[in-house]
């Protein structure tokens, strides 16, 4: 039986103490305008809190934003906690001030894509459309 396809649900999250939320909020709006269901965590979330909220909200993807250098710990930590909770079918991507050398390491750690400053919103939205599908219940 065909079920009606539900909309993609994305969570935009700010892990750590970094307060730079301009990018995260713009991305959240762009996702909303693109027709996704959007949950924005607000600032200062620990990786554990983000994973818990993502499971609660039943999202298909988490977009992490970091501009203060702590991505090397925070992004992989989110991936790890998702695994621990058996929710690693939730896609994790990230963005912010991420040096090139770190991008490969983050991808190895399970972050599916990393967007750096200057990436057009359309490109980010398209990526989600092509790479994130509503999860099976």
């Amino acid at each position, binding site marked *: 039986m065909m079920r009606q396809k539900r909309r993609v649900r994305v969570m935009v999250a700010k892990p750590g103490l*970094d307060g730079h939320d*301009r990018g*995260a909020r713009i991305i959240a709006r762009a996702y909303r305008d693109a027709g996704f269901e959007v949950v924005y965590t*607000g600032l*200062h979330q620990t990786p554990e809190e983000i994973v818990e909220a993502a499971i609660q909200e039943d999202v298909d993807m988490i977009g992490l934003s970091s501009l203060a250098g702590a991505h090397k710990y925070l992004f992989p930590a989110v991936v790890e906690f998702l695994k621990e909770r058996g929710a690693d079918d939730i896609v994790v991507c990230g963005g912010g001030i991420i040096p090139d050398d770190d991008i490969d390491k983050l991808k190895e750690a399970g972050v599916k894509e990393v967007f*750096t400053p*200057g990436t057009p919103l*359309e490109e980010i939205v398209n990526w989600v459309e092509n790479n994130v599908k509503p999860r099976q219940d």
Partner: protein
Amino acid sequence: MALTFNPKIFDDIEKGKKKWQKELEKVFAARPERLRRFATVSDREIKRIYTPAHLKDQDFMESLGFPGDYPFTRGVQPSMYRGRLWTMRMFAGLGTASDTNERFHLLVNQGQTGLSTAFDMPTLMGYDTDSPKARGECGKCGVAIDTLKDMEDLFAGLPIDRITTSMTINPPASVIWAMYIAMAEKRGIHRKVLGGTIQNDMLKEFIAQKTFMCPPIPSVRIIVDTVEFGTREVPRWNTISISGYHIREAGSTSVQELAFTLADGIAYTEKAIERGLDVDDFAPRFSFFFNSHLDFFEEVAKFRAARRMWARIMKERFKAKDPRSWWLRFHTQTAGCSLTAQQPYNNVVRTALQALAAVMGGTQSLHTNSLDEVLAIPTEEAATIALRTQQIIAEESGVTNTIDPLGGSYFVEALTDRMEEEAFEIIQKIDDMGGMLSAIEKNYPQQEIADSAYHYQRQIDENQRTVVGVNKYVVDEEIPVEVLEIDEELERLQIEKTNRVKTERDNSRVEECLERVGECCSGDENVMQSLIDAVKADATLQEVCDVFRKVYGEYRDPGIY
């Protein structure tokens, strides 16, 4: 009333303009105007030409006058850069206190005239390095300060009785300032001679920068404590740097930056007066901090309008009598958000233009961003180029030869007037909401900034706005700059250092001191001396901040987008 221009010339100007417009139509008929719409980076439409007709009602002495004279449009000091150049103050902070101390010595040796400290995120939020909230953050975007020992290492060997120090710190500003005072006193330097600035502006944190600890009302109460204490005990210290910088970085327009910043200043002034302080006792120690963004003339106009508006607010609204209360003295930082990761060397040029606008606007001190700041904490080489940029403007370009060189430009004056008018309209709106604290509660400034930021990003994505190297003149490139790495080992070492301090201190004395802090917070007593005593007893930053959090509760981000 003495008008700037003889009214007779306006007829001639009108005639001349008609003739020119006729010619213009012919030119544009053959080849249309380059853009459909010419607008500033804040999307404010700009006319083809400006003439004295735009300044028809301007009274030279009332609107401009002379530098050092009300309303200070042309500068706060009579001499401006003919007397002394602005303070070249480069923001620095990385890794441990000793690492940053080394960078400070380097900058001072290269001719920098003031220090400016960047703290890491845990310090900015009032957490120690060993807090679970601080994992992975130690030393990443500034220096980690847990105890007085760190503060001592940070300023070791630096002449803090002669040099002024700016500290970019907000929720725990009172505690960090207490550590600075305690550190100086341990070195035998009296608090009365200390000069510098703590940012200590919580309202813009709720609006834009988003480092917070306690809710707005108690946050402002602690700020008023610092203002009161500074007025009495540390008279050379700027107890607050009312900041538009972060409001702009969060995506506001120039006029929103101006209006929200001055509205914050109004709120602090009201609260300090409510405390029973005389406006002329504290207002001279208020300082300001603005962004210098890409649109050159708009920024110059913003700085000039800011001075005139604050002078009017202080004199007319708060009835301040001391001319020093009317001064809007400000620090400027070039716009970090305007820098691009693509073709990063272009950032040197962007920063130079923004720095020039700040100088033409009469700034008292300036930080120029490094070309690699969009990628990581600046390398030494990049920070040096940024400092050299200021030195070239100061000593080679000739722009410092005369005061307010753009004063009298039809365009700049018209823009300055318009900026003032529009910003006062926003301030009126905030007044109608019951002041900035209520406006923040209603998420008014937050929402306005979110709207502007999204609008701007859309314009870039739709190519209505050029960002060189990002949506035009794009090249395939490997980003060629060297990026400074922060050693991951640092976090462990810092935790060890703090633990050593904890084992060597008198814990019962610490407890006693923290209890005193709690009493001051729950009651009406000024908290500052209790903080100085607590940090002298080696209470950690977080231990003190936990008292604030316990007494006042924690503020959580409402997550507006």
